[in-house]
């Protein structure tokens, strides 16, 4: 008989979580509640006597501030009660921890396998009706996809005596039998089958699999192995996963015919090979002896040299579809997932920083939401909490990020999560960046257990959710189980116990074992040995499950004893599932039964290349005509308050950005620790002064005019950000993350060929700027189906390229922040301003579209400017440096001033520009390649000698706390109190 323990704060103790919930009910949903109090419920699914339950309750509850009860409700003094618990099979971290505590407390008296499940009661006081309470439950307290709730009014609660204990267990089934799938079907029937089973395989791919199984050698091999002629369910699921867009990047590898008006057709055999890998090859060749790349595009993350002793590792991932449905779980698994990627690179890396970039619709969105979409405000709060838990609990500082707003992200929010790692150049006598499973090595699964979590995750974005199968749809991460596993794996690494490891992300074991088997040339595994969360999983589900916190390691026979002993001592589950061999085949068993047999070359190389057409349009860059606003001070103030410009301090403070002790430039800087840093600087090795700068660039709005310039500006912005804080422009590596709307033309997606042309153009720009800048791409990822299409509503995101730049500072003490430092310093503008207002925040503020998109005109010359600026920084000539991005020069000057608590007096006529520009254009143009720099008077001459024509003094820092900008007329066109500007900048996103 299950029973309930309840824990609540004693009367008189402040219920901070309840108070915060009440505030959000009011702010987010507009309901008035007088008070919210919380009660934590532990449903103990074990036959225990009252004494043991009492012992447990007294240990769980804080004796100073909490009261507790056994089988007696604590709720009182409320009008409505909402109890929220998890659905069956959903990860319940508090439940797991309390179960472990119960086992320790009660030792033998705790029944083997017994579990505790948790739920939370919200006691609402206020004049509400049931429908309002249910709206609060669904709108804030409960995500029905992973949770369930019950509502009681006070009368019913009193007459019923509260709730009866209920346990959310997954119904236990027999292991489903392995089925075979007939592919001897018409083309139409093949396509229907692919769609019905959510394989997301195209007709060509279905035919390729069918033909493979009809090959005489395959037929004979299967007969000999005792397998049916037709593929098993496991086999076809493995093809669907391995060949999915998510895993195989079929669009990036497609053969594309690219048409551009007025130009000859261009044939591109894979944009990935041509532009992404192509850029890196060209940069590496040009670097020659100075090439710092070690392992790029082959492992889970890119690896390059930090210095003679250490290697850097970096990876950035997206987790868009899961975050749309469950923002908390989606972002949390996004972070812990990319953490596993970087850990499981080469011989294994220690993680030293996280980054996160969210693209969302306005949290102030009003109006109806299309079905299945969550309000952006809820997504924002959910992803924030997900990253907070994922990053903070893993002990990895979140050092850099962005929030980018555009209404089209309502259809699909973008959640980018990145992780940097570091490893010694050599580990246990071997180069750390290389790894290779050897024939004979054992296949060991380490970490969490397998459930139905995230099955079909690789094709999930196109899937309609099934009623009643929520446990398979989204997942919640468990950072502590993962932290324990990572602690263990790094210790095993240092003892040289593994040949290789990789994470279990999309595709689970199928992906990790399938990839690792390529090196030795074969593997054999028994799925019956895999530890499960609950019984009843079919073999294919075990193999494909994306349950979190799992790694696969290749461990030599000679080390396995020590490896398993160490795992046991560190309370980490590690299970031998099979071994690698050189048979050329991947053999999957379930106990004695053979359930899948794969020819490795066909599995990895058999997918037919897609053939696509891309059609670019004539770009119209004529600017709309409009009257300049008479009061540029008020325009500047409004721009500072725009969502894409304003302070993000509320988020930044909720992420631990200093853990590990190497923080040098924090996300917030300046006289009151709240100015917006351009990039982070971290010392990953505390004994060394070597600094790593982490920055990023993205400008999705520019795609509306030309995705080429969107991409060029994104690369420049990322590089410029790290240069601004002091990184050496000749030692920068970058990562590309493409998030696109569906670029495959179809009836439902008639302009798919244009979206593909945008993708081609973005790649061309990525190539050209990376080559000109000498910045190799070391890792990247793409996510191609970021559209919402239900009923008549279709929302496509603006094509978005996130570029993450990682730079190196030989001496972190030469880092520079963006805040003005001293009155009397000279103010310089570096770089030339053009009238680039298309896609700008200024135009968006005026409600204008079109116009001349910002362009990086001479990348080679710009790179040279960055070198000169860096030389000036190394000579300690620079007090502050701030890059110009959203909102242009006006916003950058204002930020530099209020972050420093000082005024600036600037003559706009001195700002280097292409032609004489109107004051508003000069102030708000978003031309890339520019900085605002302040320089001590004593260093001004030296600075000018170093920068030459690339910098011009435009004014000086003043004691007077005002921003005074005089325009073409010589009169002040902006004259504002810096604290008022700061207030306008801080106000919008503060909850």
């Amino acid at each position, binding site marked *: 008989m299950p029973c309930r323990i309840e824990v609540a704060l004693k009367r008189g103790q402040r219920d901070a979580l309840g*108070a915060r919930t009440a505030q959000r009910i009011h702010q987010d949903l507009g309901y008035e509640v007088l008070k919210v109090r919380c009660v934590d419920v532990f449903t103990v699914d074990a036959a225990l006597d009252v004494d043991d339950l009492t012992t447990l309750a007294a240990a769980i509850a804080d*004796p100073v501030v909490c009261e507790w009860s056994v089988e007696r409700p604590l709720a009182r003094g409320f009008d409505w009660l909402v109890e929220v618990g998890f659905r069956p099979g959903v990860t319940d971290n508090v439940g797991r921890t309390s179960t472990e505590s119960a086992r320790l407390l009660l030792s033998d008296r705790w029944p083997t396998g017994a579990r505790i499940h948790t739920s939370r009661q919200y006691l609402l006081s206020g004049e509400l009706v049931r429908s309002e309470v249910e709206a609060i439950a669904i709108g804030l307290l409960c995500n029905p996809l992973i949770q369930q709730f019950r509502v009681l009014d006070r009368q019913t609660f009193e007459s019923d005596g509260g709730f009866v204990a209920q346990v959310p267990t997954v119904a236990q089934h027999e292991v489903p039998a392995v089925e075979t799938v007939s592919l001897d079907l018409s083309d139409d029937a093949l396509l229907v089958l692919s769609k019905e089973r959510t394989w997301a395989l195209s007709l060509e791919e279905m035919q390729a699999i069918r033909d493979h199984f009809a090959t005489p050698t395959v037929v004979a091999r299967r007969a000999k192995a005792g397998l049916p002629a037709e593929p098993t369910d496991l086999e076809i699921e493995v093809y669907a996963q391995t060949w999915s867009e998510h895993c195989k990047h079929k669009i990036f590898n497609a053969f594309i015919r690219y048409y551009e008006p007025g130009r000859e057709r261009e044939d591109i055999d894979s944009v990935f090979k041509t532009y992404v890998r192509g850029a890196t090859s060209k940069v590496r060749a040009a670097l020659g002896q100075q090439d710092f790349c070690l392992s790029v595009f082959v492992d889970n993350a890119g690896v390059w040299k930090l210095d003679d002793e250490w290697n850097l590792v970096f990876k950035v991932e997206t987790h868009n579809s899961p975050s749309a449905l469950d923002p908390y779980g989606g972002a949390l698994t996004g972070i812990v997932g990319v953490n596993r990627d970087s850990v499981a690179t080469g011989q294994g890396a220690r993680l030293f920083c996280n980054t996160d970039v969210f693209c969302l619709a306005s949290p102030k969105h009003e109006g109806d939401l299309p079905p299945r979409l969550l309000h952006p405000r809820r997504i924002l709060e959910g992803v924030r909490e997900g990253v907070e838990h994922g990053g903070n609990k893993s002990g990895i500082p979140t050092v850099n990020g962005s929030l980018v707003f555009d209404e089209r992200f309502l259809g699909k929010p973008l959640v980018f999560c990145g992780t940097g790692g570091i490893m010694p150049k050599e580990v246990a006598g071997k180069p750390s960046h290389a790894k290779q499973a050897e024939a004979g090595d054992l296949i060991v699964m380490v970490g969490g257990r397998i459930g139905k979590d995230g099955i079909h995750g690789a094709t999930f974005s196109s899937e309609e959710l099934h009623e009643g199968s929520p446990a398979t749809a989204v997942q919640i991460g468990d950072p502590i189980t993962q932290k324990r596993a990572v602690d263990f794996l790094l210790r095993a690494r240092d003892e040289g116990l593994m040949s290789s490891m990789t994470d279990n992300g999309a595709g689970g074991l199928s992906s990790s074992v399938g990839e690792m088997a390529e090196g030795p040339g074969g593997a054999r595994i028994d799925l019956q040995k895999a530890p499960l969360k609950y019984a009843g999983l079919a073999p294919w589900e075990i193999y494909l499950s994306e349950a979190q916190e799992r790694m696969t390691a290749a461990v030599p026979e000679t080390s396995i004893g020590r490896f398993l002993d160490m795992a046991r*001592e560190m309370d980490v589950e590690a299970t031998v599932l099979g071994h690698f061999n050189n048979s050329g085949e991947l053999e999957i068993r379930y106990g004695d039964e053979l359930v899948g047999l794969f020819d490795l070359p066909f599995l990895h190389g058999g997918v037919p290349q897609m053939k696509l057409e891309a059609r670019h349009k004539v770009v119209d860059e004529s600017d709309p005509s409009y009257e300049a606003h008479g009061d540029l001070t008020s325009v500047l103030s409004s721009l500072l308050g725009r969502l894409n410009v304003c302070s993000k301090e509320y988020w930044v403070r909720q992420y631990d950005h200093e853990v590990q002790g190497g923080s040098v430039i924090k996300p*917030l800087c300046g006289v009151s620790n709240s100015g917006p840093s351009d990039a982070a600087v971290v010392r990953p090795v505390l004994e060394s002064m070597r600094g790593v700068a982490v920055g990023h660039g993205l400008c999705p709005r520019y795609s509306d005019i030309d995705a080429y310039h969107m991409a060029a500006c994104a690369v420049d912005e990322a590089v410029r950000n790290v240069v601004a804080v002091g990184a050496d422009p000749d030692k920068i590596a970058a990562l590309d993350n493409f998030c696109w709307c569906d670029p495959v033309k179809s009836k439902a997606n008639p302009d798919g060929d244009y979206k593909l042309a945008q993708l081609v153009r973005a790649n061309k720009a990525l190539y050209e700027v990376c080559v000109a800048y000498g910045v190799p791409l070391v890792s990247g990822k793409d996510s191609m189906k970021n559209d919402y299409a239900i009923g008549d509503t279709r929302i496509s995101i603006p094509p978005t390229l996130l570029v993450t730049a990682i730079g190196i500072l030989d001496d972190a003490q030469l880092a520079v922040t963006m805040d003005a430092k001293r009155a009397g310093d000279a103010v310089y503008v570096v770089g030339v301003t053009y009238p680039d207002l298309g896609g700008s925040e200024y135009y968006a503020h005026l409600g204008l579209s079109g116009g001349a998109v910002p362009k990086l005109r001479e990348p080679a010359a710009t790179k040279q400017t960055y070198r000169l600026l860096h030389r000036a920084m190394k000579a300690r000539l620079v007090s502050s440096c701030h890059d110009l991005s959203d909102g242009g020069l006006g916003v950058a000057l204002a930020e530099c001033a209020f972050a420093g608590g000082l005024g600036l007096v600037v003559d706009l006529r001195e700002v280097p520009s292409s032609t004489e520009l109107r004051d508003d254009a000069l102030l708000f143009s978003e031309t890339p390649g520019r900085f605002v720099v302040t320089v001590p008077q004593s260093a001004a001459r030296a600075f000018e000698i170093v920068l030459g024509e690339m910098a011009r003094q435009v004014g000086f820092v003043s004691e007077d706390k005002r921003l005074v900008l005089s325009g073409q007329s010589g009169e002040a066109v902006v004259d504002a109190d810096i604290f008022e500007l700061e207030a306008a900048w801080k106000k919008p996103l503060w909850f």
Partner: protein
Amino acid sequence: MARSIRVIVLTGNGINCEMETAHAARLAGADQVDIVYLWDFASGKANLAHYDFLCLPGGFLDGDDLGSARACAIRMRHTMTPSGRLFDQIRRFVADGGLVLGICNGFQLMVKLGLLPSLGGDPGSQQVTLTWNDSGRFEDRWVHLAVDPESPCVFTRGLSQLELPVRHGEGKIVCGEFASVETLLERRLVPLFYIDPATGRATTDYPANPNGSSHGMAALCDPTGRILGLMPHPEAYLHRTNHPQWTRAELPVQGDGLALFKNAIEHLRSGQ
């Protein structure tokens, strides 16, 4: 010849500040600094008897799933080592004159294990608690702290003011019937207070006091002064580049946080 000082820094199970805490101990002059997994006590590989100074670093022990450090307090009370209960090993270490420094989550663990403030009564029973910040939020921000010069705390000896970061969601000290605020203040067991930098006085006002702790209490020590728990992170300010305003202020190369570790090493070297 001065005696050799051996420091043990715990890790594992969600602890995540072990690296910088060990770095602090080394910079402060410890002769031997070992980062030891919690699990290594059960197997007998680690034993506190071999050390002089125990550091319990920050982190999220067991994910703080039952409230900060509570599940780990249960774990430590029930962990058996080859020579008996781990908790007894810790109490013996304390009784034998060892120093203990708990930072953030380590402080929360000490409070929940009853190691602080340790005012007598049933040993190992929890007397105060650390609970949710008034804001209900985790926050990372720098705070100004004043030292109580009359405190018996050996870690803060000779110090007057410090700047350090806090990074916590549950940092508000709440006293119970066993140990009132008045008793703690009277017995000078509050060595550090959050202060308003403008006035230099202890404050309960956000954000100078990040969690709403009464009287601005930021730390607790035991009556011997050898056990200190604090919410701010001294190991996060060891070098001037850790300070949020190092690019605009003249600061000593050595960060404020190192002084606490130096005092501890100094005490051990000179004391016995």
